[in-house]
């Protein structure tokens, strides 16, 4: 008899058996466990069973909250004055600005984004070292959308057993209707997901209206289509394969987890040796695991948590809820599967008391790094100048000799006004004795020169500095450009040099 057939026979036999009084023994196979993993194999479908419990509730709340944020944020309005967009969170590629509520970032300030990514990475390190793959289990979009898709699947096709039956059954009208309904809802969610994504890049109400009228830009439809497809495909069809085969994070996490990390753990010290349990039988001399396989049936990744920590496990904690429910029914304390550390299991096996160490050197290091990067970002954002000044000395020609022997240097002065309103900024220069200044486009010759800079724009000025021959004592003379807002005393300055080209005596 071949091996698969044998296991089917076993499964069928087990179907009728009880693991304990009132607890059916599931025939769930850990399809992705190390034993049944083959290199070339079509995906085995996984039918996660619905569980009830604290973690499931937490995940429902998290799912609702995160989806609400994702779909809702583009619609929040934020008044910024005339000429500026009133969308609270907007990546404005056309105007080259990133808006986040009161923060506005220019492309040259992309280091704020770097800081944000560093913070995100460090935050991920910290929670992973503390509680294992909480990101994967609760917050990763792949997990959240897959959870949502499984919820839809469950609502239409029923729970685990009903879904398995439906898939095995020949094509009937009912099956056709159910499958069509499921894929239709999936595609609608996918389209809404792709649709929400593009709203972050344009004025949401305008773009949404244009999308439906068919007048939006072709790129909007391309992105909408692409993201609809990826959402539908990754959350509906690829599911756990994304985590197991595509994502680098399961590989990285091994370096971030240590023996003190709290992870979803099967306490084999308490559970083994496992076996079915009949009412009235004593619990002495055997483990608390009644081998009901409910943890396997609940697992969206198709593994058996009792095999220990595995690459596939996203720490979604649904097996905890499944097991706690069973433990309650057989009148045993909950927590056979729980957040625990591998060290605690060894401690208990040695007869010691378990310990939880939340303060460890690596965690302190992560926390300090997060605080430091956060402080730098906060300081940068709170002291962000509203004026920026850049001075480029003309190098071709390096200097110009005028008919009276005086020397002139030209500078390209770029003044950025980060306020939304236009401002008249005052440009002044500290330079060699007796110099004269002229800015092309500004009539006034006496300093400070009034320079009108439009709101939220850069103005480029050509500034000519002329120094009389007798003042040219050195080949290179320091020169300072200063711009200030006469109304707010906001000041910024930049150093440059004045080159006389060796005409010094």
């Amino acid at each position: 008899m071949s091996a698969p057939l044998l296991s089917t026979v076993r499964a069928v036999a087990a179907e009728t058996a009880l693991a304990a009084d009132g607890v059916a023994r599931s025939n769930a196979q850990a399809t992705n466990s190390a034993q049944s993993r083959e290199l070339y194999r079509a995906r085995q479908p996984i039918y996660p069973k619905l569980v009830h419990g604290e973690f499931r509730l937490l995940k429902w709340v998290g799912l609702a909250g995160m989806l609400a944020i994702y779909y809702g944020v583009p619609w929040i309005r934020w008044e910024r004055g005339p000429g500026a967009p009133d969308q609270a969170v907007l990546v404005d590629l056309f105007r080259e600005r990133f808006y986040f509520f009161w923060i506005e970032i220019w492309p040259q300030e992309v280091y704020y984004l770097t800081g944000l990514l560093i913070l995100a990475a460090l935050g991920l390190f910290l929670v992973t070292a503390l509680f294992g793959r909480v990101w994967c289990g609760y917050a990763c979009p792949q997990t959240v959308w897959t959870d949502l898709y499984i919820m839809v699947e469950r609502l239409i096709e029923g729970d685990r057993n009903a879904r398995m039956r439906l898939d095995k059954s020949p094509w009937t009208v009912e099956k056709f209707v159910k499958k069509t309904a499921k894929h239709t809802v999936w595609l609608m969610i996918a389209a809404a997901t792709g649709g929400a994504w593009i709203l972050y890049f344009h004025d949401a109400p305008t773009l949404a209206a244009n999308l439906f009228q068919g007048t939006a830009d072709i790129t909007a439809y391309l992105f909408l289509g692409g993201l609809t497809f990826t959402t539908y495909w990754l959350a509906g069809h690829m599911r756990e394969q994304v985590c197991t085969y595509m994502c680098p994070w399961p590989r990285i996490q091994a370096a971030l987890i240590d023996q003190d990390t709290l992870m979803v753990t099967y306490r084999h010290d308490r559970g083994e040796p496992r076996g079915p349990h009949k009412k009235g039988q004593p619990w002495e001399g055997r483990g608390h695991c009644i081998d009901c396989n409910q943890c396997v049936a609940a697992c969206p990744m198709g593994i058996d948590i009792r095999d220990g920590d595995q690459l596939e496990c996203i720490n979604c904690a649904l097996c905890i809820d499944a097991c706690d429910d069973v433990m309650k029914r057989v009148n045993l304390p909950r927590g056979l599967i729980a957040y625990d550390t591998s060290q605690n299991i060894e401690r208990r096996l040695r007869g010691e008391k378990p310990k939880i160490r939340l303060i460890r050197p690596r965690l302190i290091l992560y926390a300090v790094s997060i605080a430091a990067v956060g402080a730098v970002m906060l300081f940068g954002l709170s002291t962000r100048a509203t004026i920026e000044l850049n001075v480029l000395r003309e190098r071709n020609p390096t200097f110009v000799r005028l008919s009276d022997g005086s020397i002139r240097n030209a500078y390209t002065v770029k003044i950025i006004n980060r306020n939304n309103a236009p401002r008249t900024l005052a440009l002044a220069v500290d330079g060699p004795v007796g110099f004269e200044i002229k800015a092309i486009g500004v009539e006034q010759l006496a300093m400070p020169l009034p320079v009108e800079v439009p709101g939220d724009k850069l103005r480029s000025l050509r500034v000519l500095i002329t120094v009389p021959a007798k003042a040219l004592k050195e080949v290179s003379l320091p020169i300072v450009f200063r711009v200030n807002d006469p109304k707010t005393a906001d000041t910024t300055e930049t150093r440059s040099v004045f080159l006389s080209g060796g005409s010094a005596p």
Partner: protein
Amino acid sequence: MVGKKKGVDEFSGTETTGHEWDGIRELDTPLPRWWLWVFYATIVWAFGYWILYPSWPTLSGYMPGILHQSQRADVEQAVLELRSKREEMGKMLGTATLEQIEADPNLFQFAREAGKSVFGDNCATCHGSGAQGFKGYPNLNDDVWLWGGKLEDIKHTIQVGVRSTSPDTRQSQMPAFGRDAMLESKQIDDLVEYVVSLAGRPANTEAVGRARQTFKEQCAVCHGEDGKGKRELGAPNLTDTEWLYGGERSDIRAQIVTGRGGVMPTWGSRLDPMTIDALAVYVHSLGGGE
């Protein structure tokens, strides 16, 4: 021995190809499924491409594809679009006065950038990429202008050129006093001293005295009695520190002897009016504009 029979490898459970060399059989491991699907997808894609885009050569040309796509036409279209985009700003440039152009940062920026680009293509060969000039080719950054430094003057010079083929060309001629034997060598030596003294540099006073009359007779017509030059004639100022052909005594002497004069081509017939406007604004804004 080469076996032909396909079988299943007992260790891996994978089919074999039936090839066997020295007792070693080749496994027929299947390609990853995703790879195969991508491969099939590329084949489908290729058919679509053949139908939509230019693909197969024919005897007299090629299959154009139902989209009739042509990169050459795309480029022409892009150039046309660019032109029409520039048209609007160009018109504004044509009607605005210099003051209006320089006061409007956008228009000014447009004119400068356009002018800079045209300058690089057409003018930099002689005047240098930064318009700094060379010996015999004027520096356009300074305040020395042979034919005037107002925007209109600059524009006119660009249009008609200097000693060019244009009938309206700006025209001046420094005689070759030495080569054409109009003055004797001794007189030229004295004139050199005189010109040096005009520029405010120490010179041989006896020679200066001797040359005074010669200058009045030969040079003052164009350069003026005070040597400050005449722009309407394109005659340079001899009293400043700038010398187109060099300010050393030998340079000045060489210029009196041979009377060199450069040629600037006429651009009115080669560049469109908008481009000339932009070019004039650019040159004017270099710093020397009046």
